[in-house]
């Protein structure tokens, strides 16, 4: 898990029911995330399922993304249990998703892998930001600020998974509490 408590940069804005086929289409599931070069390749295919005509997400020349923050609506990450989805986002260089709500497995995979922070907004932020807007996300304060006018939006507290996120993922947490050997 990225330990940065402040993440600053342009946002990529999506709406409701962003599904795992959009995040990483199934034709790329032949890549194995624990093989380093395939992990990087997964990053280059993040959001490859976006409909034609959308702004490209992985637009940097090295295949990474200029967007460290994704803003979404309700039910972000619905569909498959493919862990390739949060991994592709993390491998592309995204640090956090801020959405109104999450599909269960995507949220869990984000926390368990420590690839990205899955944060929940108090309000519908996909109507308050557009792709490319600069934002500053403060994890400790649970806020996201729209840089253009300084407007601050509050996020929900992380809740029961906070210790897992703080530890850096499922394995680190289980070691910390002695559930598995160090």
């Amino acid at each position, binding site marked *: 898990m990225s330990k940065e408590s402040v993440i600053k940069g342009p946002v990529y804005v999506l709406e409701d*029911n962003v*599904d795992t*086929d*959009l995040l990483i*289409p*199934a*034709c790329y*599931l*032949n*890549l*194995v*995330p*624990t*093989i380093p070069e395939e992990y990087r390749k997964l990053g280059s295919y993040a959001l490859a*399922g976006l*409909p*034609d005509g959308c702004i490209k997400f992985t637009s940097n020349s090295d295949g990474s993304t200029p967007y460290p923050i994704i803003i979404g609506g*309700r*039910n972000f990450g*619905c*569909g*498959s*249990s*493919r*862990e*390739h989805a949060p991994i592709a986002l993390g491998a592309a260089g995204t640090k956090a998703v801020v959405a109104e*709500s*999450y*599909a*269960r*497995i995507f949220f*869990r*995979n984000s926390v*368990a*892998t420590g690839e990205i922070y899955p944060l929940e907004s108090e309000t519908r932020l996909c109507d308050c930001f557009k792709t490319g807007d600069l934002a500053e996300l403060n994890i400790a304060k649970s806020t996201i600020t729209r840089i253009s006018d300084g407007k601050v939006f509050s996020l929900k507290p992380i809740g*029961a998974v906070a210790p*897992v996120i703080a530890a850096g*993922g*499922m*394995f680190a*947490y*289980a070691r910390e509490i002695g*559930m*598995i050997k160090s």
Partner: protein
Amino acid sequence: MTITEKILAKAAGLSSVKPGDNIWVNADILLTHDVCGPGTIGIFKREFGADAKVFDKEKIVIIPDHYIYTKDQKAHRNVDILRDFVKEQNLPCFYNPGTDSYCGVCHVAMPDLGHVRPGETIFGTDSHTCTHGALGAFSTGIGNTDAGFIMGAGKLLIKVPETIRFVLDGEMPDFLSAKDLILHMIGDIGVDGATYCAMEFTGSAIKSLSIDERCTICNMAVEAGAKNGIIAADEKAMEYVSGRTKKPFEALYSDDDCVVKAEYRYDVSKLEPVVAKPHLPDNKALVRECKDIKVDHVYIGSCTGGKLEDFYMAAKIMKGRKVAVRTLIVPATRHVEQGLFDTKIDGQSLRSIFEDAGVDPIAPPSCAACLGGPYDTFGRTHGEEVVVSTTNRNFVGRMGSKKSMIYLASPYTAAATSLTGYITDPRDI
């Protein structure tokens, strides 16, 4: 407690649990396949060590099924990773492609092979693992990291879900199937209507359904965001399981006074066939409202709609008739494939009924085009095809092409549509 709470309490060694509790639950079965198995193994080795042994080799079930009939080299490499791991760990429950043990789609094979038992916990690296709740198990989909954890530790930290109860009573009308029932329910509560919850299905209409049909209902619980779908084991389920496993098990049941988050009631005798229009499974419409939609092909297959009973329903409609559009038949498992020969309607095998109707050559069992997959996958869309499919998801690009339009339907509706080339209510055939 509800059935889900009781199973989780038992698996955690606790006398009681309540929704919201975070508990360590022992796994009775860990299921994985060719798409997520290699990554799971990678995590297991990274975290537990190169020489680590799995927590219990009898409890690991590996069923490659996704990318089997393809020339994709990485897909073949991934199955080889599974083969090497199975050999290294000496795992007995591996169903090896290219050999007699290969079975096909994991969620249809799992109950049939006797890996599903009432009252047990099943974790699988596939969202449709919720299928196995149809036999009274707690069964849920997880990612590679959690699966790698279970592979070494045999347990997982999970949150006890609230339960939403669906009571379905009444007599099933002709040409209405379990797929219509679950599409009605998802359409009513929405694709996030059961997020983090257990969906428990009960009532006389559920009891009247076959095991295959119950699996269809629990299979799509994840399409409403649920953690698990579950149907308490009745005599029919107990008989099904007892014939397939030698391992003892204890079925559990919801208490009469258990607390649920919400309850929905249906009289199925009043329901009509439905489809889910593009591009979400909750985009419900009556089939008869879609009769002007022309389709390019019909797909009958997958863990949702590729079971023997699904093909029986389709064959009932197609018998003695000819298809008007390309029709693709993908039996989920080799057992289902054999069933197409052995199961007859008025003396004619299902396979012969399909062949006489003029379907495409029947494909070998696998997940095939349900999730698109490698470019050479059987039935994958590549253009602007309009597809009526018995599968589970109709997201943009789900079956391959981002420009194709997928209508999710029952086997009856899919078969009726294949005969006319337009979305067709099976009651009109």
